[in-house]
């Protein structure tokens, strides 16, 4: 029973950290692109935009966060169920909605908050199930 509990705690904390990392990564990308400005699709403008993205600290911070999130995703899948991790990552919608309002000062509609609330309920239910149900792997 205590082994189960430690698997649950380990899975829970890594999933939370992974979701936070990826969401913060998205926000960094948005902050970086906001500074660079709206992308113009003319070829010469694209080159300028590309140069601006690879020299932007915000964009690199975003990429670093997203990559760390992906590594955590790989790690947690090495022991936890896909059907546990995959729905749990949708908790990121709630984090992104919250950060969009707090940091980016964007407007979030009532319908979107209602959807986010449903997602949170769903993730809570998934979080109450056993993180690992198939032990037949090596």
């Amino acid at each position: 029973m205590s082994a189960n509990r430690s698997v649950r705690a380990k899975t829970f904390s890594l999933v939370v950290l992974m979701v936070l990392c990826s969401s913060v990564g998205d926000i960094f990308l948005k902050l970086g692109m906001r500074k660079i400005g709206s992308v113009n699709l003319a070829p010469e403008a694209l080159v300028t935009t590309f140069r601006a993205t690879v020299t932007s600290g915000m964009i690199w911070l975003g990429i670093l966060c997203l990559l760390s999130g992906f590594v955590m995703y790989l790690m947690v899948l090495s022991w936890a169920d896909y059907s546990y991790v995959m729905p749990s990552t949708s908790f990121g919608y709630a984090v992104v909605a919250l950060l969009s309002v707090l940091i980016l000062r964007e407007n979030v509609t009532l319908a979107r908050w209602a959807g986010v609330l449903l997602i949170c309920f769903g993730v809570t239910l998934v979080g109450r199930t056993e993180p690992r149900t198939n032990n037949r792997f090596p």
Partner: protein
Amino acid sequence: MSIRIAAFLAIVIFASTAGEISITYGMKNVGEPHRLLPREIFEFLKRALRTGWFWLGIPLMTMSFYATLVLLSWAPVSLVVPATALSYAVGALGAKFILKERVSRMRWAGVGLVCLGVMLAWTG
């Protein structure tokens, strides 16, 4: 909904699910790092990057990503995101029948709520 939008939605949903299931299968074969220390995480990553399942999963997920971009050029986000939310349900089916995970009733309910939540958040 036009037939090409439906076809690309199917590509987005099935390619991402197949890619993620393939990566999950690969990571289960790699085995978990014993302790979450930098050195063991590095060793884990080295093993992960050597499995074929990982390299099958990445192009599938990439394909799904580009298919999403194509869809977004044809249809509004308020159609694309809610429709691709179906991948949560398809993913749970894949987990049950391919990865042989036990998807309990509570987990199904959770997956269903997440699907509905994503649909509500992006259609409203």
